[in-house]
Structures are given as structure tokens and as C-alpha cells.
């Protein structure tokens, strides 16, 4: 038995057509390795799309417009990363002398820390590198290169303020003048 196997192998070795060449062996080996690595990579990519996301929905209802007094409302900071601001006038969005509501993102535009609202100074101040923002979201101190981003605000069917974080408005792109960046209410 062993002898026939050995002689068979010897015959294969002698037959150049049936013998796996060095180059073929390396190609097959590396090919399989690269294939396996890519399958592993696919598994990694799959992690980017989890089955369940424990995140608050991107849009939420914040209550009736009348619930918001003048100034900054911090109730939605922890749950939805949003400050809702009522302002008597917002010249930066082209609404001078018009009262209304807008929603600010709570992410600092410098490196993404979460600033604190300092009611006494009426400003948002980042604890990481000291960027400061006015209640309008405008950056005025520290390194932040651009103002806080604003979310879309609208009135839902039931009359509540709807904040939609899928749509953001950036001042430096001239987007704050968009109709839904500011809610006249």
C-alpha cells in the first residue's frame, strides 16, 4: 500500500504537468490568505451596522413653543444633545427684531467636547480647550473655528416644537438664514 502511494507520488513528481509549481503554490497560498483576511474585514464592516442602536431618535418633540422662556433651555442637553434657545432677535440668522426658537447642537466645533452653559456669563464654555460661544451659538473665544451647529426646528401636527437633527445648519456656509433654522413662535 505504502509503496504504491510512494511510487504514485514519484510518478506525479516526474510528470511536470501534474506537479504544483513553486509559483503556483505561493499564488494559491497568498490568494487564500488575502481572501481570508478580506472575509475577516467584512466581519469588521458588519460591526458598523449594529442590529440595535441604543441612541435617542434623531428627531424629537420638545413640547409646546410656549414652554420655552427667554434664553437657553438645558432640558434636552443630556437626552438629545440639544440646547433650545428662545431669542428676542437673531440678526445672525437674518431675523432682527423677530422673536423665535432655535436648536443648537451641544458639540463643540473645535474637537467635539460638550461645552457647559454658564448662565451668569450667558455663554457656552468648553472645558477642554476653552472655546466660548454666545447664546446664539456664535464662537467668540478660544480656538473653536466656527459657531455651534443648529438643527432644523418646526411645528409638529400636534403643535409641539419638533427638533430634527437629520438636518443641520452651519453659519459659515450661510445656512442659518434657512426658513427652518429658526422657528418664529
Amino acid at each position, binding site marked *: 500500500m505504502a509503496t504504491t502511494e510512494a511510487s504514485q507520488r514519484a510518478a506525479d513528481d516526474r510528470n511536470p504537468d501534474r506537479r504544483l509549481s513553486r509559483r503556483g503554490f505561493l499564488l494559491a497560498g497568498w490568494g487564500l490568505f488575502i481572501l481570508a483576511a478580506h472575509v475577516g474585514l467584512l466581519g469588521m464592516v458588519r460591526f458598523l451596522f449594529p442590529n440595535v442602536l441604543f441612541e435617542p431618535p434623531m428627531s424629537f418633540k420638545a413640547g409646546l413653543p410656549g414652554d420655552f422662556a427667554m434664553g437657553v433651555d438645558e432640558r434636552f*442637553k*443630556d*437626552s438629545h*444633545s440639544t440646547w433650545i434657545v428662545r431669542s428676542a432677535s437673531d440678526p445672525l440668522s437674518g431675523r432682527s427684531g423677530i422673536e423665535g426658537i432655535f436648536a443648537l447642537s*451641544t458639540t463643540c466645533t*473645535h*474637537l467635539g*467636547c*460638550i*461645552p*457647559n452653559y*454658564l448662565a*451668569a*456669563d450667558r455663554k457656552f*464654555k*468648553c*472645558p*477642554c*480647550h*476653552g472655546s*466660548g460661544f454666545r447664546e446664539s451659538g456664535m464662537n*467668540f*473665544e*478660544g*480656538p473653536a*473655528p*466656527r459657531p455651534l451647529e443648529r438643527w432644523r426646528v418646526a411645528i409638529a401636527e400636534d403643535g409641539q416644537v419638533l427638533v430634527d437633527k437629520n438636518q443641520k445648519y452651519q453659519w*459659515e*456656509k450661510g445656512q442659518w438664514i434657512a426658513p427652518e433654522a429658526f422657528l418664529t413662535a
Partner: protein
Amino acid sequence: MELFKSIVNWCSQPAIYISLCTVGFVLLISRYRVLSRPSVLWGLAVGIALFFIVGAQDEDFLKIITKGDNMPIVIMIFAILATLGMALRQAAVNDMRLERGLPPTEAEDRGKVLVWPDLVYSEFICTILLSALFIAWSVAVEAPMEEPASGTRAPNPAKAPWYFLGLQEMLVYFDPWLAGVVFPGLIVVGLMVIPYIDTNPKGNGYYTLKERKFAISMFLFGFLVLWVALVILGTFLRGPNWNFFAPFDYWDPHKIEPLVNINLSELVWVKWIGTKLPDNILIREAPGIVIILAYFAITPALLAMKGMKRFYEEMGFARYSILVMLLLCMAALPIKMLLRWFINLKYLVAIPEWFFNI
């Protein structure tokens, strides 16, 4: 005591602190033979220790220096003094010997020891002692835990690990892509490039300062003033809301520091010329762009003609250009700091539309 406190507080204003560090650094390089005498080094160590002991009488300062996070910085100050002092001492001794025509001490066999058993034994004993010290330390001092991590609240102040405080300080003055990516990359690349641009064979195998004055002083400036001094600044002088606090100030989270930063474009167009900002981005930022280009194009040429002429002739164009580029990038940090502190300049080139700010 009050006088002592107010003097220290005055010296801790950022611009004065960095200036004092720079003056101290220049003194260190120019007077290293005197400063590295054992008596002077011990005097400095005792002086710093006295400063901490006297300062600890103040409650706020005591709280800062005994915070678990900050103890390594206090230790670091003494460790740097010791290692730097020993190296400079050795360099001073060698430089004096070389002047007298003698070989450096390392060239003689004096003091040579064997790896086994001398070195390995010392290392072994050090390992045991340090392990004991760290165990005792970790038992005695509570870990500086903070509140549970939260995606919606950042601690105030939010400090990086102590060894990154220099980097965090740099981020106060530059856009993240520069201070977080380009400059740290340049630090690493620059350190790797040193053997290729510094071809001076002197100092190979022995300590010397005189024979490599430029190389050592440039390295030490980056290390001592732009890294260690900024780590100390970030640890002891940065408080809530990332405001500056002098060592004997109470860390008041409601401290009001009126800072209104201004971009160079606003300064030039609005304040000096008196028009509104041009709509075209490149025209709007032209002043800053011209300054940056001039800084990196004209300064090397000027330095090649005067000041660093010898370098240009000895190193050739390519090596010289790399060296000067690295030096200019290094100098950009203190320049930007001073501009921020004195004229509240935010960005020389501010193009938030393209996420490009310098």
C-alpha cells in the same frame, strides 16, 4: 507670605511664565558650566522643594499639588532637574578637558563597569525599590477617579493625561488638523530626521555641549520650553473652563475672563481698512495667506544670507531647507501663543468653510 503669593501669581501669567522659561533656558545654555555645579543643582532642588513646602500653606495650591493626577508632575520637575543636571555636569567637565587638550572622561577607562554583574545588579535593585515605591504609593494615594463617564457631560476642566498636556495646550492655539495631526506628526518625523540633518560627528560617545551647541539647544528648547513647561502650565495653571488660574487662586468655575478673539482678516479689513469682509474667501484671507507664505518662503532665504549662512554652506540646500522648515514650525507655537495673548488673534488664515484655519 502675601507678597510671596502675589509675586508668584504675577509670574504665572501665561506670557510672563513662558518668557521666564525662555530666559531661564537661555541662561541654562549660556551658563551651563556654573549652573551644573553640584552645589548649584542642590541649591535649585532645595529651592524648588521650599517653594512647594511654602506654597502648600495655601489651601488651593495644596489641593492642586496633592491631586493624584498632579503628583507625577511634581516628581517630574525634580527628575528633569536631576537628569539634565547630570548630563550638563558631564558636558561641562568634558568641555573644560577638551579646552585643555585632554580627551573626554569617557575616552579613558575610568569608571567603566561591566554589564554583568554591575549594571544588571543595579537595575535589579532599582526594579525592586521602584516596585515597592509604586505599591506603597498606590495604597497610600487614592486613584483620582472622576464621575462616571457620560457622553453628554465633560469634566470641567477636561484634562488630557499629564504627558499630553503640552499637546492640549497647543490645541488651544491651533486648529485640530494642525495641533492634533500635523505638528505631532512633525515632532515624530523631525526626531527621526535628526541623524540625517545633524551630521556633526562630535559628541559621539561622550557628553559635550560646546561642540554641539546648536543641536542640543534646539532640542532642549523644544523639550524643556515647548513640552515640559507646557505640561507644567497645563497642570498647575489651567482650571475650570480652561481659563488661566495663578497657583494661589481659587479655581472659580464662574471666573469671568473677557476674551473676544479676532481673526486676522477681520483685523485687517474691518478694523484697519474699515470695509466689510470681502465675499471672496481667498481675497478675504489674503493677508494671512501672504504672511504664512512669507514666513515659510522668505525667512529661510533671509536666514541663509545672514545668521545661518554657515549652516546653508555646510549642509547644502536640501538639508538646510528641512532644518529651517522644522525650526519654523517649532517657532510657530510660541509665536501663535504670544499673538493670542497680546492681540487676541484667533486665526491668521480662517476659512471655516473649508475647515482650514491656521
